[in-house]
């Protein structure tokens, strides 16, 4: 692997400089990222906790969506999804492995969007979402296009965090900071 440092003079042209370093967001930007991280991560932690507390309700929600006929798949989803949500949500809120956690949450949200659209096409509109147990974010009418938009906004937030990372107020930044000599 060649290095610009191999030349006799310091790099001056864009070709010699290599890829530009990621732009550092300001303190306001970091604060916004922190808010987004805690918001999105917190929502997923809450959703996961509720599902883990009452797997029967979550299984019935999966069953009602009619996304799959396989009982094993439903049972696996019932027990696996909440744990993945919990770990990813916790990591995102703390800013630990932020991009990876945001990627997982974004992927899950895309799956949820697909499940909701699938349910709408099967005339299951209005079906209770059971996404956040007894609580709602914005949409109160159960499964519908409002839910698709709501999940779309959350996916956009997750995508933003994949691109930007956790910002300066994150464990990632704290752990990557070079130790003083």
């Amino acid at each position, binding site marked *: 692997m060649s290095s610009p440092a191999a030349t006799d003079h310091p790099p001056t042209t864009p070709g010699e400089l290599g890829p530009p370093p990621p732009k550092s967001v300001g303190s306001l930007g970091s604060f916004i990222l922190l808010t987004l991280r805690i918001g999105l991560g917190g929502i997923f932690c809450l959703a996961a906790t*509720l599902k*883990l*507390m*009452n*797997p*029967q*309700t979550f*299984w*019935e929600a999966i069953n009602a969506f009619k996304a799959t006929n396989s*009982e094993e798949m439903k*049972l*696996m989803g*019932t*027990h*696996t*999804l*909440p*744990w*993945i*949500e*919990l*770990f*990813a949500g916790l*990591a995102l809120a703390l800013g630990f*492995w932020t*991009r*990876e*956690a945001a*990627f*997982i949450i974004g992927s899950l949200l895309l799956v949820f969007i697909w499940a909701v659209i699938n349910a709408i096409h099967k005339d299951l509109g209005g079906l*209770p979402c*059971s996404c956040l*147990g*007894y609580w709602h974010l914005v949409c109160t009418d159960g499964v519908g296009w409002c839910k698709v938009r709501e999940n779309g906004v959350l996916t956009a937030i997750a995508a933003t965090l994949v691109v930007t990372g956790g910002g300066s107020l994150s464990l990632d930044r704290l752990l990557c900071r070079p130790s003083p000599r």
Partner: protein
Amino acid sequence: MERFVLRVLVVILLGTTLGFWGMAHSKVMWKLPENPGLTHTPPTPAPKQAPTGPTGPTGSTAVTGGQVAPTGKPEIKPTAAAPSDAASDYFISLEQAKQMWDTKKYGDKDVIFVDAREYVEYQEGHIAGAMSCPKRRFDGAAPKYVRNYLPGNAVVVYCHGQDCTDSEAVVKRLIALNLNIGPLFIIKDGIPGWEKAGYPINKGDSEGFVN
């Protein structure tokens, strides 16, 4: 890039491992289990007198499909023409429900009626003395009043009738709590049948069951 993929896989693997552990210990019910309240044999000996007609609020005679049976404990059997799904195992007729409502007893257990519809519908009219407990109240932790009042008691659940699945959902959730709630029954004709039969209906807020 490799590190990114590796970290994603670590999180997913961690979640999946715990998920499989959860599956191994899962108590999720795919269908309602066989109703123990319907299959037990009454422990008390049968009285000598022959059945004479519809039962009154005595608690000493039993109902089977609306007929009197000579047992010391209500012997509830599923009603005829019930749907083929597992919920039919829990169905009782209006007469059976009314008898339990009159006596407030099933064997040596107290009977509590549970309204599985939404609270607004409960306020518009419910079986007198029933507890309101819509199925979505079980999202997350079960309501405190369920934990306080239902354990150790027989429970009769109802909603809009035979085609309404809310009663079945509530029964599943009550079984899943593992709080010794039951036996559990579902009024096949629901509140419309109860109302049509002219049985006692109350309107307004929750009766006596407080958090």
